[in-house]
C-alpha cells in the first residue's frame, strides 16, 4: 500500500478501464522509497495546474504492476525506481525511469499531454 495523496491503481481491471477511458493519465509506479516519494509529491502538486490529467500511483511490487506497467515495451530497459508512464488516448505518450523533478515532469506534461 502506497501512502501518498494520489489515487491508487490496484487492479489490472482498473488500469484497463482507465486506459480505455481515453483520459490523460500519469502513473507513478514505485515504492515508498527515497527516489519515489519526491515524484509522488511532484504529481500531487501539479493536480490543480493540470486538472485534465489523472495523477495516479501503483505499487511496484503488487501483481498489477507486474501485469501492466512493468510489462510495457517502453519500460523494458528501466532499472531505476519509480517507473513513471504518461498515457494519452490509451497509449503510452512518454515514460521515465528514476527520480524526476517538477520541471522535468512539467516539460513532459506540456509536450505530451497538452
Amino acid at each position, binding site marked *: 500500500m502506497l501512502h501518498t495523496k494520489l489515487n491508487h491503481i490496484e487492479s489490472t481491471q482498473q488500469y484497463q478501464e482507465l486506459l480505455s477511458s481515453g483520459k490523460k493519465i500519469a502513473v507513478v509506479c514505485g515504492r515508498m522509497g527515497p*527516489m519515489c516519494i519526491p515524484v509522488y509529491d511532484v504529481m500531487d502538486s501539479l493536480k490543480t495546474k493540470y486538472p485534465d490529467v489523472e495523477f495516479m500511483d501503483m505499487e511496484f511490487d503488487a501483481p498489477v504492476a507486474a501485469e501492466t506497467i512493468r510489462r510495457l515495451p517502453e519500460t523494458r530497459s528501466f*532499472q531505476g*525506481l519509480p517507473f513513471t508512464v504518461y498515457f494519452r488516448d490509451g497509449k503510452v505518450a512518454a515514460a521515465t525511469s528514476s527520480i524526476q523533478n517538477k520541471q522535468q515532469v512539467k516539460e513532459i506534461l506540456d509536450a505530451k499531454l497538452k
Partner: protein
Amino acid sequence: METHPYDAIVLGGGPAGLTAAIYLARARLSTLVLDTGTPGGQMNLSHEVANYPGVLVTSGAELGRIMRSQAESFGARVISQVDLLGLDLKSELKLVEVEDEGVFSAPVVILAPGGSPRTLGLDSERRFMGRGISYCATCDGDFFAGQDIAVIGGGNSALEEAVSLTKYASSVTILHEFDHFQAHPWAVEQARTNPKIRFLMEQMVTDFEGDERLAAVTSIHKVTGKTVRVPVTGTFIFIGYVPRTVFLSGQVELSDRGEILTDERMRTNLPGVYAAGDARAKPYRQITTAVSDGTIAAIHAAEVVENWKKKAK
C-alpha cells in the same frame, strides 16, 4: 500583486528549515516554509537513520514527515514544490515571489536550501540514469541481482552502499579518484574484507557506454593515464553533495564552493538573513548539525523579529 506578510520565511524544508520553523512558530511568530522540492530534504534519501538522538532507528522520510507535522502543529505553514520567481533579501522587509502563490514578505529569512547529490556531469551519465546509473542503492539494488556493478566514490556512503550492494550483485568495483578513502577506517575495513569488492584507485571516470542499458564504465588512471574499461550493467554514484545556492548568487555572500557564509549565530552578511543546514559553510554535515543550525538561527531571528515589531509600533 498582493503581498502576504509573515514574521519569518524559511527557504527549505529539510531538518534545518523545519527545526527553525518549529522554534519560530512555537515563539508565536507567523512562519512560512517554502520548499522547492519535498519537505525532508536530503533526509528523504536516507533509508535508515540510526544516529539521531532519541530515535533508535527510523527512515529519513519518516523523520522528515514528523518534523513537518511538528512545525505545522505549532502553526507554521509549509508549502512544497514551489517555483521561486524572485527574491529580494537586501531590503529591510524581505520579499519572496512564488509562482501561483504570490509575493511573501517578512523581516527575517532563514536560508536552508540544503544540497543535492553531486553528479559527474557527463552527458552519458544523464543518458543512463534509470537505465543502469543510480544514486540510491536501497531503491535500485535489486535490479542488479547476479550482475557486475560499479560504485563511484570513496566516502562513507560509497563504501557502505558498496557493501550493501554485494547482497545483490556478483561483484562490485569501487572506482575512486584518490589513492586513499575519505570514509571512516571501519567502513574501509568492511569493504576491503568483502570478497565481492575490488578497488580501482586514482581513477577519473570519463564515460558510460551501452545501448539501451549501461554496459561499461570507462576511466583513466590519474597518474599513468592508462584507460580502463570496466564491463558493468549498473553503476551507483556517491560523490558527495553540492549546496543548492545558485539562486542566492549576488544576494548573500558565498564561499568559493558556493556555501553560504555565516557567523556562529547563523547570520549572513545581510541583516535579517540567516542560513542553516548543509548549504552553510561548515565542516560537518549531519541531520543533528542541521537541527542545531536551525535552532540557533531561529532563536536569534525571533529576537530580531520582536525588535522589528516594537520599532514598527
